[in-house]
């Protein structure tokens, strides 16, 4: 989707450089329909926050166009863009009460006092913080501050809301609750949301689509399930979820399957994703939970590998077993803790295999 027609938010060949020597964002193209919850995911320094800041107006694009509802916003100052924003450290004004914080965007929009109070109360109720209007931000817990920051970004009814790692400072349980609340709220209000995070679980659970950033580019833009199950390159495969990698050379390509000869000499089946020619080096990616060691459940003609169990870790809901396979000690399989599940023992020799479609031959 490089076309910007009909998109609500669009980046068109956007580049950004701070020092004139290196590009932090390289040729970014992205378009979002109205009402979408899009997450920018990536390691630090991948350019995702810069993109968000350009959209908010705090950074200017060195090249390219950013459009909002069809209008180029490159030269519109931040306060005129009407974009709600939630900051990493919440950025609640410490000298104002919760109600004053929420009322601030309405005051600068010259909305009358009674309308203001009504909107503030409605926004506070929306995040279940109606009783805290008179408090100062410093008197609130992290989670409460986050709710207020969210309410403040929504109180002036923006069509686009940006969130910059808003849950980064919270503990796990609270984070999960708030993830759920934020997505619900965004969908209920029909707001278009751009969410920046480096937490892949957060990205997968909250988003309609996820843009995986690395090295100033979007590596893959896809819905969470597609991203996880069908990574388009080895960076995405590595970055999202746990992943086993085996290196080898493509020996044969037949339609949507291929044969890969691993460096250890073993032969496996895989789906060619971005390998084109026989003889290309490839990194083969298999998710740990898709690896099968029960011979009965595999196709008869499936290629299998010999494996030695190195370590068995009991994790409650799952078992995590580390194997030595095809010359690597880091091959991991995950099995569900079911009554009939076999618990492997270190030293045990097994045979592993997988369905050909679960094994993806990616770029080396």
């Amino acid at each position: 989707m490089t076309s910007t027609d009909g998109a609500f938010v669009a980046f068109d060949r956007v580049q950004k450089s701070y020092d004139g020597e290196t590009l932090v964002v390289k040729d970014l193209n992205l378009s979002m329909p109205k009402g979408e919850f899009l997450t920018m995911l990536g390691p630090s320094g991948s350019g995702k926050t810069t993109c968000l800041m350009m959209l908010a107006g705090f950074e200017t694009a060195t090249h390219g166009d950013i459009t909002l509802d069809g209008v180029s916003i490159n030269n519109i100052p931040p306060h005129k863009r009407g974009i709600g924003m939630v900051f990493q450290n919440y950025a609640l004004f410490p000298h104002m009460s919760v109600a004053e914080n929420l009322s601030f965007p309405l005051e600068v929009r010259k909305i009358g006092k009674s309308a203001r109070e009504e909107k503030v109360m409605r926004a506070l109720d929306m995040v279940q913080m109606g009783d805290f209007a008179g408090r100062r931000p410093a008197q609130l817990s992290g989670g409460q501050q986050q709710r207020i920051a969210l309410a403040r970004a929504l109180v002036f009814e923006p069509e686009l809301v940006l969130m910059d790692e808003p849950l980064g400072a919270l503990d796990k349980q609270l984070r999960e609750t708030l993830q759920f609340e934020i997505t619900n709220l965004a969908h209920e209000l029909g707001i278009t949301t751009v969410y920046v995070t480096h937490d892949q679980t957060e990205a997968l659970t909250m988003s309609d689509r996820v843009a995986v950033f690395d090295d100033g580019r979007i590596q893959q833009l896809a819905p969470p399930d597609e991203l996880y199950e069908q990574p388009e390159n080895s960076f995405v495969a590595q970055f999202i979820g746990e992943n086993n990698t085996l290196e080898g050379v493509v020996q044969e390509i037949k339609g949507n399957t291929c044969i890969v000869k691993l460096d250890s000499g073993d032969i496996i089946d895989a789906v060619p994703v971005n390998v084109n020619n026989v003889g290309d080096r490839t990194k083969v990616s298999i998710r740990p939970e898709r690896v099968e060691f029960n011979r009965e459940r595999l196709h008869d003609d499936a290629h299998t590998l010999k494996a030695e169990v190195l370590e068995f870790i009991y994790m409650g809901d799952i078992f995590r077993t580390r194997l030595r396979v095809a010359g690597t000690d880091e091959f991991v399989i995950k099995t569900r803790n079911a009554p009939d599940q076999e618990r492997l023992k270190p030293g045990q020799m097994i045979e592993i295999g997988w369905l050909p479609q679960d094994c993806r031959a990616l770029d080396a």
Partner: protein
Amino acid sequence: MSEPVIAADGRPLKASLNRALRRQKMRALALIAPLLIFILVSFVMPIADMLFRSVENEIVSETLPRTVAALDAWDAGSGETPDEDVFNALYTDMALAVEYKSHTRLGSRLNYETTGIASLFRKSGRRVGKFDTDVYTKAFQDADPRYADPQQWVAWMADDSIRAKLPMTTSAYDDWAKMIVEAENDVPSEEEPWDFVYSALYNDAVSGAELPVSVDVSGITPVSLRTAFGDIDDKWLNPNVWRTIKTYSPRYTDGYFLNSVDLMKGAEGVEARPENEQIYITLFIRTMIMSLSIMGMCVLLGYPIAWLLANLKDRTANLLMILVLLPFWTSLLVRTSAWKVLLQQQGVINDILVWIGIVADDNRLELINNQTGTIIAMTHILLPFMILPLYSVMKTIPPSYLRAAKSLGATNWTAFWRVYFPQSVPGIGAGCILVFILAIGYYITPELVGGTKGVFISNRIAYHISSSLNWGLAAALGTILLTIVMVLYWVYDKIVGIDNVKLGG
């Protein structure tokens, strides 16, 4: 009611806790003890002494004890010169004071209140030993040689019954003996008492006391000391001089404070000083207004710089910070003298203004030796004290607040004024307090560049400390200045709240 909590060993928990904390407290105390003692000795005690000097007035009653006692009976409002008794007392006091050389100090002290008394005391000190009172000495010694025997005097003055009969003589002899030991390094048993002792003996005898060896005193022609003092200087016959002595005879006085606010003790209580002597109220007001202007200038000039420093990259900010601190590393005198060079009428600034054509050559600006000079030079000197607290407070305001405000729809100005500025107020408060308090007590710079119109109250205090030596007045002025600062601090605390003052962090 809840039961007191008991610790594991059965004692109340509170007592156990206190015992555990006591050791810690003792250690903390031991750690601060050296500094505490140093501050007590070198700071608190001198200040307390200085404050005490603003009301202390022992010199009159210590130097002229008898005169002060005799003046009790004299009515200051009568407009008449005191009687012979007072002059008799004054004679004894002066004769002793001259030996201690304390009469000149007393003269200077009383001169603050009535001009001319200093020279009166000096003149009288020179002449008081030459009074004709030796006729009494001669008369007593001629009547009986024992009156000339030092040993005999010692014996008499050791006898309580004789002492009781001769009060004036005893008092004069005791002080004389003390003076002989202290001022002359002699022994009373080897020295013949001086004339004023015999004079006192005569006065005792005339008032009907029984002498140790009876002498007929009716044959002695009395010497009028009133006339004798009047002959030295007729000011002694002026009731005003005596009223001054009587007014300032108590051990404590509010005179210095009255003086500090341009008042004085007149014949009918407290009254305003003559207009040409009223300087202190004007000086206090000027000091306040100029300190406030300097403070305001510092805020205006310092705020943008602090903002820039807080928002630059660390490397650049550190470089600029060195420039801010540079004046600290230059001597105050050098900096102030530099301003003299820059600001004078033939100085650099005027030259440039004339050269550009803004100012006519024959109408050069007066930038120094007036209030303008003081304000310019002191703003420069005190600016770092405004920038540093501002900077350290601004450094703690995350830039995301401004961004948040803008994303919420505020213009740059609204974002600054509604969000950034309120958070920098603690820094402004700290800077203002620092600058104002430093300014109000500054004296070197106003002294050098202030001329006559641009000096502060502290210059007057320095003058009284080092030139006029009127320490009491200096102490009173200092006390008033301290009180003003504390009252302002209190007002500030009430309005802004001292918790809102931050030097950083």
